[in-house]
């Protein structure tokens, strides 16, 4: 098999690491540049959640495997959000992926991109965990801190166990090893754990300049690139 991406393992690692330490935009940009340079990566419904430079530099759409010309007239920009690491753009291109996209060269980039997104979201989730940890450790309640409350410790531990399980599934997996169903499952687990974490931030995590906004984008990322199951 010819490989479009020369060193997938290194790319996935870069993507995970950038998400964890820099933010969603650098990680998304690394993934897009590594797998689909010059293209606007879209999910099966024609939605994209990408770093601003990827949007600005794209010369064609990549619709879950199929290439199409850009169609700015039909594209709706749903949001442009300034997050740590840079701006992320959320788009609805108005084009769904064609049914015959599995033929030819579409499958491999899709597998790499799909796997990369789970790694990326895991990195974001781990960064969120660190942010929660720091905030709760500094927030006092009575003679102690919020982090030392047993209910809080329980939630943190549950989230950690979740992240460890997800990482165990991802580690060593090559593109195509994990079924689309498994990737969706992992996305669902990350979303559920992120929600637990965001609750721990209190109302501070509901501000637009908080880690809560990154968690929101992470959720939409999973939705945009979810495997198509239902055709309404």
């Amino acid at each position, binding site marked *: 098999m010819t490989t479009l991406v020369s060193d997938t393992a290194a790319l996935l690692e870069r993507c995970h690491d950038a998400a964890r330490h820099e933010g969603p935009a650098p990680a998304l940009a690394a993934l897009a540049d590594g797998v689909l340079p010059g293209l606007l990566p879209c999910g*099966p419904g024609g*939605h994209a959640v990408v770093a601003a430079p990827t949007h600005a530099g794209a010369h064609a759409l990549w619709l879950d495997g199929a290439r199409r010309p850009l169609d700015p007239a039909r594209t709706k920009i749903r949001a442009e959000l300034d997050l740590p690491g840079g701006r992320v753009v959320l788009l*609805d291109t108005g084009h769904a992926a064609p049914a015959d996209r599995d033929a030819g060269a579409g499958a491999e980039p899709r597998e790499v991109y799909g796997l990369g997104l789970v790694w990326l979201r895991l990195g974001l989730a781990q960064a969120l965990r660190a942010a929660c940890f720091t905030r709760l450790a500094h927030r*006092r309640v009575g003679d102690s801190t919020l982090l030392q409350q047993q*209910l809080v410790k329980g939630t943190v531990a549950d989230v950690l166990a979740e992240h460890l399980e997800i990482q165990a599934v991802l580690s060593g997996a090559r593109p195509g090893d994990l079924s689309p169903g498994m990737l969706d499952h992992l996305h669902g687990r990350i979303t559920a754990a992120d929600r637990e974490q965001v609750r721990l931030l*209190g*109302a501070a995590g*509901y501000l637009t300049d908080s880690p809560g906004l990154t968690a929101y984008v992470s959720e939409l990322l999973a939705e945009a690139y979810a495997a198509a*199951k239902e055709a*309404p």
Partner: protein
Amino acid sequence: MTHLDDRLLILRGQIREWGAQVRPLALEIDRDPEAVRHHFALPAVRHLATMGVPEEYGHEPEKIGGHRFYGVSALERAVVMEELACADVGTLVASPGPLLAGVAVGLCADDRQKRWFYGRVLAEPLWTCFALTEPEGGSDAAAMRTSLTSTPDGGALLSGEKRYVGNACRAQLGVVFARARPGPLGITAVLVDTAEPGFDARPLDMIGLRGARISSVVMDRMPIPEDRFLGRHLTATRRGVWAFVQTFNVLRPGVAAIAVGIARAALEYVAEHRSTLSGAERERYEELVRRVDATRHLVHHAAAAVDARGTDGHLASAAKLRAARLAEDVTLAAAAFFGPGARLSHPFLDKLARDARAMEFLEGTGNMQRLNLFQGLLGGKVDRDRRRVPADA
């Protein structure tokens, strides 16, 4: 099961109708919470503007099906809140009215204070705010730092910071909780007129529930006359913590009802935009409907309990806990009926999912409700087993 009587069923029908006029505002208010100013004439907004003012203070709402509704019972408010939250929760929380502050006034104010507060609210649509949370800790109200320092004329100077206070940046009146003395009995609430010097509130940019205009507030030596202290006529033990525990007990079913309304809105959206569901989808949908219905029963049961006895707030904690999670789960599950990227194609669904997340925080987080519920169980105040055998005791 707590059944709604005919009166409340009539009210629900009317509010549902009024709600239909509010739904189209949803995305507008989400983008620009100040847009609500153009919609003061809507019957739903007018209803909220005076909801909670008792009859004896000159409140004469228009009759609905031959009845007047003053909004003084938790159950009645729960009915209204679910309907309007289902229509559009953003408009509900953006609307002027006495809401949270009004409940505190109803429970803790003396007659003169009520005349002043309700009189202002009835005179024109105005926003009120209820300022409890502080930047250093929302859940730990006992650690409150905002202070009231006595002045020789019997009044006090109010200083401190509040955060995440709904509508504070546009409120004309507020109830502010502050510490007059050290210790658990030292917390009290005062009525403020935000136009008076020393009150500065600024909006905070929120991910969801943007209609609520959540604000941060700084109070700098704001003069509070003696007659603005709530509960002056109550004993010291009833004034502070007791008063706000009751206030929260009474408010919580309303928040839970809002959460039920958000969940219902998501399901209505699915029903409206996915006319045919596959067998498996229909089963999934109906299970969500059952969950919403079950939680509504708990909410009404909790509201009836606090109406009967204001200190009976454990059911309200259970209702708030269940309803907040319900709203989050159902809004996410609703998006799944629309395939990949649903929230990017359907901004209304995205808004519901963002709004739902606020429900965790209003009137105490999930963990605070869990702890309260557990205390209720431990103290034999909730789900008491009349046939408990001694070995269990």
